[in-house]
């Protein structure tokens, strides 16, 4: 066992390193990822060790990063693109939804695009606009893409490697406000033994209500569950991990047990992941529900100025308030 205490950021860095060691077709590309190691230092030291042919500082153009990664994937490489911030993925949006997502379908399966697009996402770091967004629903809506979000160092370390090793294109969301949070990671464990990439995970058992979250909100949900426990309510917490495809079975199972579901995410509620989960739960668990599925989300406004983000982002109190409302039904 080679268990180490790592921050989530360092866990991704180590995961990238292991992926690059395992397969010399894995190359990283993005703005500032070389010498600087990326603005969050996630690629720190990788260019030094793997050279500038494998850790490529690109021109400042997101469509170019993703579009050329497609060509490299066609050539047999496994490119891992870094989009510097969530709000800058939109110039590449066309390449992602029209090209990355559809090449396999279009070619009747003759072409694979084994590529990963890493996006630091979400708020809570006091940044200026375009640096705190949660665009996951745009991608989850597009068939052909897989979309995941890690929430803790152990998962981050393995999920990035699994995303790179798979033959489908993956949009890989990293909760930037959690980059500095630490956890135990078995950095020597075999990838094959890791928890499956597209399975959700029960992270806390409880019998009274279910919380579903992903990415940065898993910690918030866990904190809410601890606080609820002090008040005598046992909340079950599920970390979605995979946003597309969704692993709904564990959620159905949990709701059949607890009868109550609250979905928590930072993205606005309108047409968001919470809506999808609520719809599917109402289709499958209608007679088990004691209350409507409730959502705790960012508001349907642009991400506000940073002095307002504490109001905008779901926090422990808003989650507990929703749980109360569920019980008040």
């Amino acid at each position, binding site marked *: 066992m080679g268990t180490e205490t790592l921050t989530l950021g360092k866990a991704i860095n180590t995961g990238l390193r292991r992926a690059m060691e395992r397969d010399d077709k894995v190359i990283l590309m993005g703005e500032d990822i070389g010498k600087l190691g990326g603005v969050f230092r996630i690629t720190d030291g990788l260019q030094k060790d793997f050279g500038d042919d494998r850790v490529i500082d690109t021109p400042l*153009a997101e469509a170019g990063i993703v*579009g*050329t990664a*497609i060509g*490299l994937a066609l050539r047999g490489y496994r490119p891992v693109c870094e989009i510097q911030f969530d709000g800058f993925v939109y110039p590449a949006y066309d390449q992602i939804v029209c*090209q990355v997502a559809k090449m*396999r379908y279009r070619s*009747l399966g003759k072409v694979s695009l084994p590529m990963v697009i890493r996006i630091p996402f979400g708020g809570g770091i006091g940044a200026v606009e375009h640096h705190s967004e949660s665009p996951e629903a745009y991608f989850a809506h597009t068939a052909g893409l897989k979309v995941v979000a890690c929430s803790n160092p152990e998962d981050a370390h393995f999920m990035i490697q699994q995303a790179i090793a798979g033959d489908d294109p993956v949009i890989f969301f990293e909760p930037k406000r959690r980059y500095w949070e630490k956890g135990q990671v078995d950095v020597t464990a075999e990838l094959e033994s890791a928890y499956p990439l597209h399975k959700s995970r029960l992270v806390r058992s409880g019998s009274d209500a279910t919380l579903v979250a992903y990415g940065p909100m898993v910690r918030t949900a866990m904190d809410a569950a601890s606080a609820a426990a002090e008040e005598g309510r046992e909340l079950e917490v599920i970390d979605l991990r995979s946003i597309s495809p969704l692993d709904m079975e564990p959620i159905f199972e949990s709701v059949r047990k607890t009868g109550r579901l609250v979905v928590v995410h930072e993205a606005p509620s309108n047409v968001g992941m919470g809506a999808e989960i609520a719809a599917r739960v109402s289709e499958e668990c209608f007679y088990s529900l004691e209350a409507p599925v409730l959502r705790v989300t960012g508001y349907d406004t642009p991400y506000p100025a940073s002095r307002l983000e504490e109001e905008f982002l779901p926090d422990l109190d808003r989650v507990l308030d929703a749980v109360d409302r569920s019980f008040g039904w």
Partner: protein
Amino acid sequence: MSKGDTAPRRSASKAASKRVGSTPEPEYVQLLTPDGERVEHPDYSVDFSDEELRGLYRDLVTVRALDAEATALQRQGELGIWASLLGQEAAQVGSGRALRTQDMAFPTYREHGVLYCRGIDPIMPLSLFRGVDQGGWDPIAHKFNMYTIVIGAQTLHATGYAMGIKLDGKVGTDDGEAVIAYFGDGATSQGDVNEAFIWASVYNSPLVFFCQNNQYAISEPVERQMRIPLYQRASGFGFPGVRVDGNDVLACYAVTRAALDAARLGQGPTLIEAYTYRMGAHTTSDDPTRYRDTAELESWKAKDPISRVKALLEREGLADEAFFAEVAVDARAQANHLRERVLSMPDPQPASMFDHVYAESSPLVEAQRAQFQAYAASFEGGH
């Protein structure tokens, strides 16, 4: 096909850039006049055998016949839409024949002539336009990517592929690989194309940008896309640009071959502007009489890419009436065969719409496939 002489590369762009702005007869590399006379160019030449010249003629005629058949099939309701290459045969056959087996091409939706030169069954793009599938040839095996409808997107894919060639160490030698990216004049306004120019230049990629300036982006004339001749854009990105007579198959071949050779030898990208004209409609849904006049059309008819090769063959006594007749009969036979095969093309199995979404299966797609199949089976004769 023999190899054209490799020209000292930067001089052509210099020669071509003497004049700026639009002129009635733009300066370009030409090796064969509209009357079928061969002309010398200081930087470019070809050394085709008689047999190869006849082969080029056969290619041009065949490609035009197949294209005309597809247009007719659309008119008869057998294809949803068709994007004709009429008038652009020389640009496509010239550049397509200049490719070596190991070179990779990234087409738009109009490159049926290049597809033909790559040895792909000409039925292939018709399934796309008939709505049976979205292409279906193997892009890697044939070194010819799928058609791309979003304007300009493929230039970035070509650039990435070219970067991969370099990473693989397959440049700098005579048997190195090169990439060609096709796009139209309208595409040069797209961000993706400009980003591709930057990338290719910065990474010195083995890539030829082949722009067929057919004068229109649907209804918009080329003046709506730029204020300077297109090939001159390249200099702003730091690589050579060349304008070639796009209706001259010999010049298109020579210029493309030289640019591909330069690319494979590690000298980086070239932008080729093939100055040509789209004789038909943009697609079968278009009405070109609304935006261009007969006089313009007539002036381009006189520069037809096929008649000038025919004139050359006649002038130099390389072919007789029997040859031209045989080529015409053979092209017609291929077109007829294409028609029969289109008419007998089966509709896809409905549940096949769930195939090939992911490499690894997706529970959502699989659940929907099962639902669909159960639903379809609930009808008599359901699939």
